[in-house]
């Protein structure tokens, strides 16, 4: 009897629908990773560890009442900003970018923290001024977004900067920023393109140029895109079969356990597999929308909406880059790519979604 009650308490704040679809995606991750790593069980085990850690984070956040989340917004955001500024001054340089901060025991990448902190802070800000939102509030919220984005873009880490900008934009959009303001933003953005181009680093320009003509750099980065497209295209409708991807297993695919894992999946499982994966993603996103639509407070609505849309953006950008319709910006395929940090960040987000959903229910009953 007590055991059952314990179990009930354990799962009380988990959303079974979301959990099931996430579980399926994580299962796909392990299956594809085994193939992508060339049958390396250690990789698979390491990913399992990542998943376990991330699930623990999910459970903790899901069980956290919402006012905890709100209270965390400002300190987490400020901490993130301090770390970002510290990176700008004392960060360690690797691969020509200053992204990591050495904190003695380990190196951390503060921009990861900002993926959650920025939308959290913005949602908190809107909630606080919910009673009377004026243009000024939107302006301040935009500033809260642009400051960290600018710092991250200067590191330079364009991929993360764009994704954080997107997550912040979703908050602005859902908070009801007027269409007119959005339109003028768009015009300003277009007008500042030439200026932005001039501030980009050579390798960033290079990547954008390469999108237009991957053959230009057939030995370097263009090589990744060309080989990835060959992998996807040659997969055909039914795929070459599990563990039979020639591109994958003949070493032609780069970064095939991380950013380019979708090429492996697509080569081996074909269009049918892609449809299944898209459906799984769509299912997660749809559930996210349902939770968002039913969220009880302004803050939770904004947060849930931003988390869901950002998750979609990750998936879209990665699949778009692997299939050659977006530039290679270094974004992992959410829940599938190998990697601990992004796994934790993503499942933390879903933990928040579950908390938003279940705590509201408890309040109502």
């Amino acid at each position: 009897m007590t055991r059952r009650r314990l179990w009930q308490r354990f799962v009380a704040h988990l959303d079974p629908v979301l959990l099931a679809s996430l579980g399926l995606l994580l299962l796909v991750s392990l299956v594809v990773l085994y193939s992508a790593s060339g049958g390396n069980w250690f990789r698979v085990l390491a990913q399992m560890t990542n998943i376990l850690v991330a699930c623990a984070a999910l459970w903790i956040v899901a069980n956290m009442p919402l006012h905890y989340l709100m209270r965390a917004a400002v300190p987490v955001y400020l901490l993130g900003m301090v770390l970002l500024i510290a990176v700008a001054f004392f960060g360690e340089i690797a691969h020509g970018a200053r992204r990591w901060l050495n904190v003695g025991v380990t190196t951390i990448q503060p921009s990861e923290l900002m993926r959650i902190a920025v939308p959290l802070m913005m949602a908190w800000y809107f909630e606080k001024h919910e009673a009377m939102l004026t243009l000024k509030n939107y302006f301040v919220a935009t500033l809260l977004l642009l400051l960290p984005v600018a710092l991250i873009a200067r590191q330079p880490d364009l991929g993360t900067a764009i994704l954080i900008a997107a997550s912040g934009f979703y908050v602005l959009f859902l908070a009801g920023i007027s269409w007119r303001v959005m339109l003028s933003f768009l015009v300003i953005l277009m007008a500042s393109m030439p200026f932005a181009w001039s501030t980009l680093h050579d390798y960033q320009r290079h990547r954008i140029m390469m999108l237009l003509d991957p053959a230009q750099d057939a030995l370097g980065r263009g090589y990744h895109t060309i080989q990835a497209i060959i992998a996807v295209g040659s997969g055909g409708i039914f795929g070459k079969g599990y563990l039979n991807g020639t591109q994958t297993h003949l070493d032609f695919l780069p970064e095939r356990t991380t950013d380019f894992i979708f090429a492996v999946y697509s080569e081996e499982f074909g269009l049918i597999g892609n449809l299944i994966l898209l459906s799984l993603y769509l299912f997660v996103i749809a559930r996210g929308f349902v939770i968002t639509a039913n969220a009880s407070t302004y803050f939770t609505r904004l947060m849930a909406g931003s988390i869901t849309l950002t998750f979609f953006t990750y998936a879209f950008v990665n699949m778009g880059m692997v299939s050659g319709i977006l530039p290679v910006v270094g974004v992992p395929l959410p829940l599938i790519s190998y990697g601990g940090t992004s796994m934790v960040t993503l499942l933390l987000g879903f933990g928040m979604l579950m908390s938003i959903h279940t705590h509201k229910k408890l309040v109502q009953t």
Partner: protein
Amino acid sequence: MKRHIEFKDTQREIHNFRLRLGLSLGFVLLLLLILLARFVYLQVIQQSHYQTLAENNRISIVPIAPSRGLILDRNGVVLAHNYSAYTLEITLNKVIDLKATIDELAKIVDIQPGDRKRFKRLLADNRKFESLPIRNRLTDNEVARFSAQRYRFPGVEIKARLFREYPYHEQISHLVGYIGRINESEIAQLEEDEMAANYRGSDYIGKTGIEQKYEGELHGKTGFQQVEVDAGGREVRVLSRTPPVSGNNLVLTIDAKLQGIAEQAFGNYRGALVAIDPSNGEVLAFVSKPGYDPNLFIDGIDEQSWNELNNSPDVPLNNRALRGQYSPGSTIKPFMALAGLHYNKRAPGHTISDPGYFSLPGSRHQYRDWKKGGHGSVDLFKSIVVSCDTYYYGLATELGIDNIFSFFSEFGFGKKTGIDLEGEVSGLMPSQEWKQKRHKQKWYAGDTVSVGIGQGYNLVTPLQLAYATAILANDGIAYRPHLLKEVQSSRTSEKSTLKTNLEFNLKLNAEHLALVKSAMVAVTQPGGTAAMAGAGAPYAFAGKTGTAQVIGMKQGEKYIESKIQERYRDHAWFMAFAPSDQPKIALAVLVENGGHGSSTAAPIARKVLDYFILGKVPQPLLTVDEAEGVEND
């Protein structure tokens, strides 16, 4: 002004929010449809096209390695060049049974156990679809034999590749350095520098010397071609081609002939010689003896040769000119004399009486002069000519270590010269601070006394002493020593000469300089310590001998050269510049275990100066001509 306040209208707000959420969902679905359309395009419409490409990856992108730039001396003599030769290469993933294939190949071409070993190592380092050489430099006969039976060996090909060669072998090896196969850590470094793409197709990278320092200039830009290959991996046709851009040629400041004469002059002695043009810092000769044959390293040195080089007591792999640190001995006396004049501790006419030893006030310890009984009455001029130790014991004590340290530091002692080679060491110019840090001891007056004759803590490299000599020869105006004279662009055959920047001007007193220089000229004339080496020279040159102790002598013990084992004999120094009034060359010579500077080091300097000033070639001299013969074929 009254502000318009929007009161909270929950119903409307939620309606608005849901509207926007709906729009977002539409946006999501639209983008997913675009992705889906892209997948359909790639996987259904274009499927057969990509199928073809992927099938055994039919279209392969083959990098074309650029030809590496040449290294020339200042007169255009080739120091490093490339030649084309055939290699027999195997692509592993196209071969079914590797061992059987190699065994069969061995029946047609000569494959030694060493070749197999090397191939195995290459296999471990490279990916399995890369083509790797099992044999280099095939003879015409072997090429013909293999070509006739090629059908039997799928995955095995003959390729024409460029090989690096250093025609001077042991000579100039320490300067030019060598290239070798790119290793793991170099690959990691290239990836970090975003240069990895440019090295696809390159097997070699500069490892030491000029080859390493100017890797960026020498390597060139890799080209590539898209080729269609058949199932056996052979090229069927070339679809497109972007040609490589050859590396730039480097013209060095070195005079290969001068270098050869210097190396020859050393005979069997170990040591180093650096000669610099004082007016611009161009390094004319850069010798470290013994050398090694850099050609051995290109394709990975075999174990036996490596052990020979690495375990030799002569340490031929050590670049003595750049990295050898020795006590400067009496070669520091001209600089000490300048310091004495500079700090007003000695006037030109001031004489001391030398009883053959020096004692600190209140101490009985005797610092002995090299000449028993002393030099009698000694002024500054004579102190340099006869290399009087007692004079400098006293002078150093009066100057104090702080003044000595700051004056010598300005001449570059204890600092890297900044020459364009990796791995330079800084020598050592001791100071109170240094001793406290290094030995956790305070500086004693006795320490200063030994520093005064270059036998204390101070250490110099031959390069440093040559640099200091050049600064002295050029009246305190310093140019950083450098080896690169000009870069010849491979694309435009345009030459860009390197600007020689003034490093600094010590602004030394002209009278002081004239006095010290005239004393150094007297060193090479009758009565001077290097009179024998200077005998009969039709030009005036300035010099100073030096002896660096290898083992310490106890108080009262006598140094008898014949009784001491060769390896424990003193090192011999000689510094010189010529012509003394308008110096065109300044040099420092170190002869390890050469005994006295006057007997071994100074004659080497004389031969180098005779060639440089008079064009006189000592007899016999075969090495350089022989080497040039190699270069011509």
